[in-house]
């Protein structure tokens, strides 16, 4: 194994190719810095590429993300590793040595032409993680339409080894014997853009622990709203019915000490409002209700966006949702306590409910692996220079971008990535003797 380990040297190692990692990589590479970018999923793009449209401009998420994905993939200064895990990063003599495992796709990338014939031929249907289980994929499939790179991945766990894919492959690129590859990177600085996950939908017993088919996570709703989403429209997973009454439960995974998430996740108010607006566009006769505690529309143009949603007829009800159950027709029933004009608890029935889940870190230092930086009490990376040097972590030369240091929306994550790239650039200028080109 050791003999085949690929060795690379770079100015900066960026971990995570969501929007923050992509932006940080571009902001470094465009200055002439060499970057190794490592993504654990088969495609770059992170959570953002999974979204339908984004607030407050309502641009389609793909239209903002794919050009950056393409720029990263084509950039002469960026080496990209997908389906790859950073096993560990050690600091020694002012440099960072990272070991990376590139997991097998079971196809040979230099042969594959992305024709999708393998995917068509495969007979094993699986839940599609890109559609959060709502849709299907095959045991060999290209992760999604505009994935980068456009290579299929064979799910070895679920492949029945029937060989149908290999039979139809015109370039004979399928390789069932492929092994993981080791890569070693020697970098001058590190940017952690490890991102977030939603608070688990099954965390709260009062909300059914994820057992109700018509109680969705917000990312599932993003997929229903997305063009070419799993259903071709917004329908109920239980029976394919077009809902006429949809409710959002705000703070379903935030500001909740019982979940260990006492903080505000910053994005849930805005994505709920955005989805509500998109829903009232695609289902003009549907009633859309948002049950909330405080509407936190704090970003540039967000308050105006919120007021537009109110003017469009989205109903905002200040209420606590104590419990969710369902009837025999899988209609979710919300037990609510209104704060305005309260008349005691009441039960309301909706066709479809979205739990506005919050953000938790995708990688926590307490998990071990990766790198020995410290976490704060909220589980996200600690920011020792929060006010003036927001990109710093507890290790010199290691910087954080995006939601690694706490919930952020896309606008803030992108700006944060620029600051991380600047901090890493200046760290290199201080610590690495090689002078920057042309500058005095």
């Amino acid at each position, binding site marked *: 194994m050791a003999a085949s380990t690929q060795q690379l040297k770079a100015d900066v190692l960026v971990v995570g190719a969501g929007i923050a990692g992509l932006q940080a990589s571009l902001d470094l590479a465009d200055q002439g810095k060499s970057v190794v970018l490592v993504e654990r999923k088969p495609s770059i793009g992170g959570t953002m590429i999974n979204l339908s449209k984004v607030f407050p401009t309502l641009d389609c998420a793909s239209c903002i993300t794919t050009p950056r994905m393409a720029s990263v993939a084509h950039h002469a200064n960026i080496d990209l590793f997908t389906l790859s895990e950073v096993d560990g990063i050690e600091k020694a003599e002012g440099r960072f040595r990272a070991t990376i495992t590139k997991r097998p796709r079971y196809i040979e990338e230099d042969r594959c032409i992305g024709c999708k014939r393998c995917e068509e031929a495969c007979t094993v249907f699986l839940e599609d993680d890109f559609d959060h289980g*709502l*849709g299907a994929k095959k045991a060999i499939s290209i992760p999604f339409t505009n994935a980068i790179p456009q290579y299929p991945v064979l799910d070895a766990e679920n492949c029945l*080894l029937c060989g149908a894919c290999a039979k139809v492959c015109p370039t004979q690129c399928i390789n069932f014997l492929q092994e993981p590859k080791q890569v070693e990177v020697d970098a001058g600085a590190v940017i952690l853009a490890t991102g977030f996950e939603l608070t688990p939908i099954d965390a709260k017993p009062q909300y059914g622990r994820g057992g109700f088919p018509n109680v969705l996570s917000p990312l599932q709703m993003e997929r229903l709203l997305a063009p070419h989403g799993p259903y071709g429209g917004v329908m109920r*997973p*239980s029976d394919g*019915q*077009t809902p006429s009454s949809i409710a959002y439960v705000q703070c379903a995974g935030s500001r909740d000490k019982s979940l260990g998430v006492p903080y505000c996740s910053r994005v849930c108010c805005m994505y709920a409002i955005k989805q509500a607006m998109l829903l009232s566009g695609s289902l003009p006769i549907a009633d859309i209700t948002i049950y909330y505690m405080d509407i936190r529309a704090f970003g540039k143009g967000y308050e105006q966006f919120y007021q537009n949603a109110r003017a469009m007829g989205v109903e905002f009800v200040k209420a606590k949702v104590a419990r969710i159950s369902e009837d025999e027709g899988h209609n979710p029933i919300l037990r609510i306590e209104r704060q305005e004009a309260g008349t005691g608890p009441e039960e309301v029935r909706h066709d479809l409910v979205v739990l506005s889940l919050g953000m938790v870190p995708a990688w926590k230092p307490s998990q071990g692996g990766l790198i020995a930086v410290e976490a704060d009490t909220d589980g996200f990376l600690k920011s020792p220079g929060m006010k003036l040097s927001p990109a710093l972590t507890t290790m010199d030369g290691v910087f954080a971008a995006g939601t690694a240091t706490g919930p952020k929306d896309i606008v803030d994550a992108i700006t944060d990535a620029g600051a991380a790239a600047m901090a890493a650039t200046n760290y290199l200028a201080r610590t690495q003797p090689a002078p920057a080109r042309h500058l005095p």
Partner: protein
Amino acid sequence: MSEGEQQGGERKGNYALEQLKQVRATRGAGTPAQIERSRRGKEMQNLILRAIADEAKTVPEISAETGLPEQDVFWWITALRKYNRVQDEKKRGDFVPYRKK
């Protein structure tokens, strides 16, 4: 690392078969649970496709005809729709009828 040797040039037609033999020998071709799941999946696909072969039907209609739970029917419709085996028809009320392609 057999992979390194194979990259580049033409492969012989039965390379995959050789590989599959090797992998099946070490790993087995699916657990009994996976094989059962696959069999059950094919069965549901066939039931659904038969139900909508001549006439477009909604999820509740297919469910009533096949006896399969609505949620399972809808998931398979989604799967078959994605891989071009099923097409949408004009919406009837709150439901989309589906027809075999």
